């Protein structure tokens, strides 16, 4: 899975597009993962249950990948658990403040031509690139 994978990545993107399309056309929901997770806290009834089913599908999908093709998950990352904890916290704070992540802004927002999402995507890709450049001593 390392190296340039234009075909696999395009196919993966098409599948994501189908998932996003089904959710908006059938239930009027935006498939933004940070929002689906973040707004499940304090939600009740049907507003909670669809979120749990979606998140459950994601998690079960991960288990299936592990059983069928664990290479898809990459080699166990050399990133330390401290970095994972700090980085994960920043992902939680940032997606809540900015109302979206790679799927909500990047996939759904750009698909519906939202200027807000285009800007957000450019910003998080830029700071992500800057972070990797600094962490890997490229600057």
């Amino acid at each position, binding site marked *: 899975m390392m190296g340039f994978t234009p075909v696999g990545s395009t196919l993966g993107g098409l599948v994501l597009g189908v998932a996003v399309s089904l959710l908006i056309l059938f239930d009027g929901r935006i498939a933004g993962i940070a929002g689906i997770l973040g707004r499940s806290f304090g939600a009740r009834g049907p507003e909670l249950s669809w979120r749990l089913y979606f998140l459950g599908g994601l998690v079960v999908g991960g288990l299936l990948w592990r059983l069928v093709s664990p290479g898809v998950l990459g080699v166990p990352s050399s990133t330390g658990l401290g970095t994972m904890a700090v980085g994960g916290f920043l992902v939680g704070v940032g997606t809540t403040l900015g109302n979206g992540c790679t799927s909500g802004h990047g996939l759904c927002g750009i698909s519906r031509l939202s200027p807000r999402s285009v800007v957000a995507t450019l910003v998080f890709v830029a700071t992500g690139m800057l972070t*990797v450049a600094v962490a890997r001593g490229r600057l």
Partner: protein
Amino acid sequence: MNDGKKNALAAICGLLFAFGLGLGGMTNPLKVQAFLDVLGKWDPSLMFVMGGGIAVGFWAFRAAKRRGHPFLGGSFGWPSSIRIDARLLSGAAIFGVGWGLTGYCPGPALVALGAGRIGAIVAVSSMVLGMLATQAVRRPSSSA
């Protein structure tokens, strides 16, 4: 009354999403970081994930905007905020730093958690803490 169908739809979409993320390479944090590593050995593959997703999503959102209601009833939950403000920019900037550090954005982190990856379990736990902390200090008036 369509709650059962809506839950089944959500589960199918979650599963499909996990399938697409894995197929596209998003669940491999090193591949994600290789996409972000523009000054190193850059792997542009993830632009193709985005391109494929938008190529399908564009038509679906276009169709959705022209419909009164989703197929299973209810209404479309269009985001209400349209302002490009400091909050959006700072949030996106902070998210990008966390994404670069971990190689996980929220979806792939949950998929990797399901696969039992320790790093993802730690990342998701603090991600939830970060969400709850931000929600707690959020001004009640700013219902973005």
